[in-house]
């Protein structure tokens, strides 16, 4: 495959259809710029700023744009909030739809058949694959991204973080917690 892709790029560059420097720029942006640290800032702000949290849940695109952390949020972004009664889990059973503007490119497992097949049929089983066990009575709501709406999970703020500032909180927000296959990290015991 590497040779085949190299040949394809050469053909397209020779025909003037692609500029290798532009391709370099796309790769570099995904490797160094776009990533879950963007979503983590959104979540940490929502945890510390109640009006922002309300704005995010009402119109996530506008709230994220106003925050200025992404190049331009998905125009159809929805934030879904985890609560003591409901846990949210995002999947794309048909392909790999994902809020990459906030989380970067999806991990391999998100795009893989095991996740895409089972997330809708057996969400608790999938969470168990991630080592996550939720109370049986807690609703697990699976969001299958079948159109151009993109979903960002707003995870529960971990206990023991009262008074933490936004940057410290953002460090607890994992990629998986914003997909719903994980929870935000708990603060280390010494930090409480």
């Amino acid at each position: 495959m590497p040779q085949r892709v190299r040949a394809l790029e050469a053909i397209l560059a020779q025909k003037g259809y692609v500029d290798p420097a532009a391709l370099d720029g796309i790769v570099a942006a995904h490797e160094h710029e776009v990533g879950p640290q963007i979503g983590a800032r959104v979540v940490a702000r929502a945890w510390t700023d109640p009006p922002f949290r309300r704005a995010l849940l009402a119109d996530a695109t506008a709230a994220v744009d106003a925050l200025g952390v992404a190049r331009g949020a998905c125009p159809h972004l929805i934030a879904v909030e985890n609560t003591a009664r409901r846990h949210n889990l995002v999947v794309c059973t048909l392909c790999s739809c994902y809020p990459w503007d906030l989380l970067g490119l999806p991990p391999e497992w998100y795009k893989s058949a095991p996740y895409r097949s089972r997330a809708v049929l057996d969400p608790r089983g999938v969470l168990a694959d991630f080592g996550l066990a939720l109370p049986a009575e807690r609703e697990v709501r699976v969001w299958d991204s079948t159109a151009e709406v993109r979903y960002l999970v707003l995870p529960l703020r971990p206990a023991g973080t009262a008074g933490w500032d936004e940057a410290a909180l953002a460090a607890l927000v994992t990629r998986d917690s914003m997909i719903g296959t994980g929870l935000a990290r708990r603060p280390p015991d010494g930090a409480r």
Partner: protein
Amino acid sequence: MNGVHDLGGLHGFGPVEPEPDEPVFHAPWEGRVLALNRALGFTGAWTLDTARAAIEELPARVYLASSYYERWALRLERLLLRYGLVGADELAAGRALRAGPPLPRTLTAGGVGAVLARGSVERPPPAAARFGPGERVRAKNIHPPTHTRLPRYARGRRGLIEAVRGCHVFPDAVATGAGEQPQWLYTVVFSGRELWGEDADPAATVSIDAFEPYLEPA
């Protein structure tokens, strides 16, 4: 189409295996494939929905046996051939053998930001929305042989309109070259038991985003 890409509800693929500290790309060629697809998508030679459909149209055994970015590479070759931008002889030779038809636009290094911002697919509605929040609907039992975004597991199942998401470009139409034909889009929520039967987790619910033509009153 009822393709192998429509994976929701299948058994047999084993556990999910997260990879600790996964790199963005596992090999440099994966990044080039992503970038090539994005750059060609930017040219306007085809639409996002056409590109998705082209992955679904890969032979089932190829789809299942290929990695994610292998599918992206194969899809790109197929689209380039279909739209006459590259010839099979050129793919075989590994170099351009002739000039290709001009494209509406090409991506420059200075314009990379344009592919890192998503465009809106919302369009002015041609009519009022047929359904409103709280209404009971059934996903139609339809099996179009062409691209659709209604997963098989939801077909024939009853759900509740939870939200109206606006009027969006209709992928089923775009992918067949029939134009955007904007349709209202709804988040429809189903109980786990409606989808999977009495043995399903009683505290699980699943929502899809369904275009109005996928739905009927229930």
